[in-house]
């Protein structure tokens, strides 16, 4: 009996010890020692500045309506889908619960591909997706319900290519990004890019191989990046697939010679979003709001919220109010709070009318 006790104690001590060590390592990784901070100098300052400036810079369209409380809202918001939009869904549901405290909320963000399955099975009533549904998924849905699912454009995401904050690279063209991440190089870059030297970096960077971080294939981010940055080519087998957007950013923050891609909402002070250009000879466009709106930044996309809306029917109060909230001024401010870009009043109006909600414009 005493033996068991001793063993249990040993086990407890081992686990606690390892957790403490992991914790220590974690804080060490996110907080660089002061001496390093000084040497990092401008790069880290710039990264942080662009991270915080984006908030106040982006203004929500003033033509969007303010949200007004409605009656008869009850039930549960069940959302299953995109990891990119997970935080955003939480912001929305939290604010929504302030209006309707008796509404229950369940939000899961395992990847965009989980959204259609859950919508079809009826286990969720909202399917956030960071990409459009694929035709097979729409077919499944249509076979079950007779009509197609409705996708609402709830926000705009800029996909950023991240490097470590100390990385001196000025910018990348899409064909270069393609040559870094893809084995077929459909973007047309002449040669494979394996080291930072291949991108023209000098000194200690010159012969350091580039470590690649990416999202797992369930994510819309993966598909979008494949389509737009790899020109539909295939990822190299050496891209390390991480299960979440923040895991990619963390990976890049820890590995000085890494590069990764993920939504702009996940930027931290330890990484830098590389300015991008569509083609060689064009100006590098930083991942900033104005450039996404103007369409100059090459990797921006809509964030979709899919719902099962039977055409010509009225949504029940819960879904109607939640969608109205999302496209209200408050809902779009949540989008800004999460680091994404809000949609304009016209997109919002189109989205609302596609599910039969009429609001005064």
């Amino acid at each position, binding site marked *: 009996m005493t033996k068991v006790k001793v063993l249990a104690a040993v086990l407890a001590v081992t686990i606690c010890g390892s957790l403490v060590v992991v914790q220590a390592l974690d804080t060490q990784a996110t907080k660089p020692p002061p001496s390093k901070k000084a040497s990092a100098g401008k790069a880290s300052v710039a990264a942080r500045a662009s991270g915080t400036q984006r908030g106040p810079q982006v203004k929500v369209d003033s033509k969007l309506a303010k949200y007004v409380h409605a009656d008869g809202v009850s039930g549960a918001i069940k959302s299953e889908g995109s990891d990119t939009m997970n935080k955003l869904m939480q912001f929305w549901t939290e604010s929504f619960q302030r209006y309707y405290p008796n509404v229950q909320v369940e939000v899961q963000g395992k990847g965009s591909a989980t959204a259609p399955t859950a919508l079809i099975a009826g286990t969720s009533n909202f399917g956030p997706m960071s990409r459009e549904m694929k035709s097979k998924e729409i077919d499944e849905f249509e076979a079950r319900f007779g009509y197609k699912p409705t996708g609402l454009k709830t926000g705009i995401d800029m996909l950023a290519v991240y490097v470590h904050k100390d990385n001196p690279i000025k910018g990348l063209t899409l064909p270069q990004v393609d040559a870094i991440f893809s084995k077929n190089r459909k973007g047309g870059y002449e040669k494979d890019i394996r*080291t930072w030297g291949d991108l023209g970096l000098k000194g200690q960077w010159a012969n350091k*191989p580039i470590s690649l971080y990416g999202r797992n294939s369930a994510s819309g981010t993966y598909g979008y990046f494949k389509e737009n940055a790899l020109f539909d080519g295939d990822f190299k087998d050496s891209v390390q697939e991480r299960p979440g957007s923040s895991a990619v950013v963390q990976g890049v923050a820890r590995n000085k010679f890494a590069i990764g891609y993920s939504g702009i909402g996940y930027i931290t002070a330890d990484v830098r979003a590389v300015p991008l250009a569509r083609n060689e000879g064009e100006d590098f466009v930083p991942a900033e709001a104005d450039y996404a709106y103007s369409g100059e930044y090459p990797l921006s996309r809509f964030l979709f919220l899919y719902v099962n809306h039977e055409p*010509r029917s009225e949504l029940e109060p819960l879904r109607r109010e939640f969608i109205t909230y999302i496209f209200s001024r408050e809902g779009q401010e949540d989008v800004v709070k999460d680091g994404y870009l809000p949609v304009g009043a016209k997109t919002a109006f189109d989205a609302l009318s596609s599910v039969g909600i009429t609001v005064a414009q």
Partner: protein
Amino acid sequence: MAVRIADRLAQGLIVGGGIGTIVAVSMVCIFLAWVVLPLFWAPSIEPAVDVPPPWSSSPPWHVAVDEHQNSAWALKRDGSLDVVRLDPPHAGQLLHERKLFDNPSLSAAAFGLEGDEAAFGFADGSFLMGSIRMRTSFVDPKRLEAPFRGMKPGEVRLVEGDLVERTSQGQFRRQSLQIELGEPQPTGSAFPVASIDFSMRSSGPVLATLCADGSARLHSLRSVRSMETGETDYRTQTAELAYPQRSGRARPTRILVSGVGDNVLVAWRDGRLVRFDARNPRQPRLAEDIDLVSEQDASLTALGYLIGKATLVAGDSTGRIRGWFRVNRAEAGMPDGKTLVAAHELPGPGSAVRCLAPSARSRMLAAGYEDGSVRLFYMTTEELLLETRTEGPPSVLAVSPKDDGLLAVTPTRLTRWRIDVPHPEATLASLFTPLWYEGDKRPAHVWQSTGGNDTFEPKLGLWPLVFGTLKATFYSLLLGVPLALLAAIYTSEFLPPKARSRIKPTIELMASLPSVVLGFIAALLLAPLVEGLVPSVLTSIVTVVLALLSGGYLWQLLPSAGRVQLAPWRFVFMCLALPPGAAAGFWLGPLVERLLFAGDIKIWLNGGAGHATGGWMLLLLPLCGVATAWLLASRVNPILRRLGADWTAFQAAVFDLVKFVLAVLAALAAALAVSMALSAAGFDPRGDYLGRYEPLNALIVGFVMGFAIIPIIYTIAEDALSTVPEHLRSASLGAGATQWQTATRIIIPTAMSGLFSAVMIGLGRAVGETMIVVMAAGSTPVMEWNIFNGFRTLSANIATELPEAVRNSTHYRTLFLAALVLFSLTFILNTVAETVRQRFRKRAFQL
């Protein structure tokens, strides 16, 4: 009596339990097979409609079916567009006829594979862009007249000129044709446009026109789209495509633009093809001039693209269809470093190819032949999925948008088939043999199951996953088995029983660590730690072993009286050798890195610098060590034993130590010599067994998974050793054998069956282990034995991809197949293990 009843009862329970287990396992197997089997079911085709076409004079240029296969539209050569009903009782009935273009007359047209966009060329040398699509909307039942409201599900009726179908869910679905046409623009030539094609680039459409005078042009319509307002603005730029003339040849007949608009192809009837590099649409450059049809008397009869517009399909007059795509091949000397290769060949019935129709969502291709046969292929696997016939040669084919129907137009018939091809991408060949995927240089085993859109070519090669599983197992056994077995031998044979009774439960406690915790530690703690200290970790593997061995030899130097007294504490003293070993490793690491790996092992591994000797040393040193030890034991030791019969214990110990040091030096020298020889001969281990360093790699997984399987192997091995009858041990010791001799010659052979099953159970655990590999293996499905890069195992792949797979899709079923493969892998391994164990056991009983 009571005893008998209890006996019977127990027997019944045991038999029932056993049968139950077998049934349960077979049920799992049956369930897996149930999901997997539809992958290999043959596709089916059945005729749905076969009627005379409504048009008599002008044959259609292009036909398209709506997604519910109730109607089709056909663009005819006279510039008019017909909509025809295809639902069985009314099939062939003309719904609308609309004159799209009258003057100037239509001379060429092209249609997007995925979208609704279309481009038209005219006899006066102008072109325009537009779109034609079937729009689906739902009708409010209240707005329908009474007779329509009584429609049965599946029934189709004509309402206000459009078809309305009652769906199985009771809604009224209406299909209406929507046509939008843009403004005409000049090509720059006054001759009729002979061929036109276009592609949508992110910056706007790119059009290529070929005029009757043989001049080809590229027009890029630059659109500036505002994400705020959604409005688009176009600007056109035109560039001439100049190709070299071949004497005495006819004018080109076709022009094509590749998917992202970066290539323009101009083709002649005799099979000549000129490829332009149009990455810069203002200055297209000539890239390649090849022959698609090599035979002299054969000619090109059909040319088109597959979905994604990267694979070119060319049908010729011999009935052969070939799939061509660009691959990166700088050595071919083309200005853009790429060259077209004929990667796929689809067999024909022997008569000329008349028409081709690609699917809009997969790599299926329908082909119509001169003799009236129609074939459906899947390009990646080159498999002939279906074959059927029409009356007379088909002039146009169309695959329905959902890949569930096929439409053929012949001069006298309009034929529609219902087809069911649920899993064309999966065949035994595509799952287990290398396939030539679009854009690759050669056929390969690839696992890349999901893409962002339908143009993606699914790559479902299971070998990389099977390979990853074997790699994980191999490296974790490599690190775990020796430790576990030696520890078991040591505790059972050399430790006092009291110490044994404490150590065994402690090691068993290791098994209680959940594998997710181990994976977590591996990925977050061990990986960054090892990454910073790669050379030191590698050298300390050697130095720690050497330190422990030298500890043993130093122990022998102690005066024998003290040694006997201290014997129970021998283990503690051995442990004292560990810190110096580790310290030596850390101290030597950077030195070795500087000497052998050009100062930075990661760059060296990446193939950047240094020569191959270091790598060979890394691989050969353990081998040489084992070889030297074997030589010492089998050749040198017997001689020494004879020579040293009358030495004192101390003399023997000193001599042993000297021998050990010499042996270590000899092993080092041998490894160095062989390495240098191999390196001088031009062999480089980088690429095969060593290569690029990734932070999450097989070494990390080996450490942690080795750790995870140690307790299970250790426990079973230790049990097997302890159950060897005590009389054998006593007899051996009594006959004057040392503890070591007793262990190696008596105990281990007797317990071999147990040791073997211990290893096999460890192996089974490693094969199926999931969480550690999900977290620490980097999830890269590569096929390299390189210990410094990652891999993806079957189990990890199932865990990460199953939640994302569309239910009952090919991907979903293939993941179940992966589970079945994993199951059979463990099943085979366990069966082999059991038979071998039985054999050992029989031998052990004979003792």
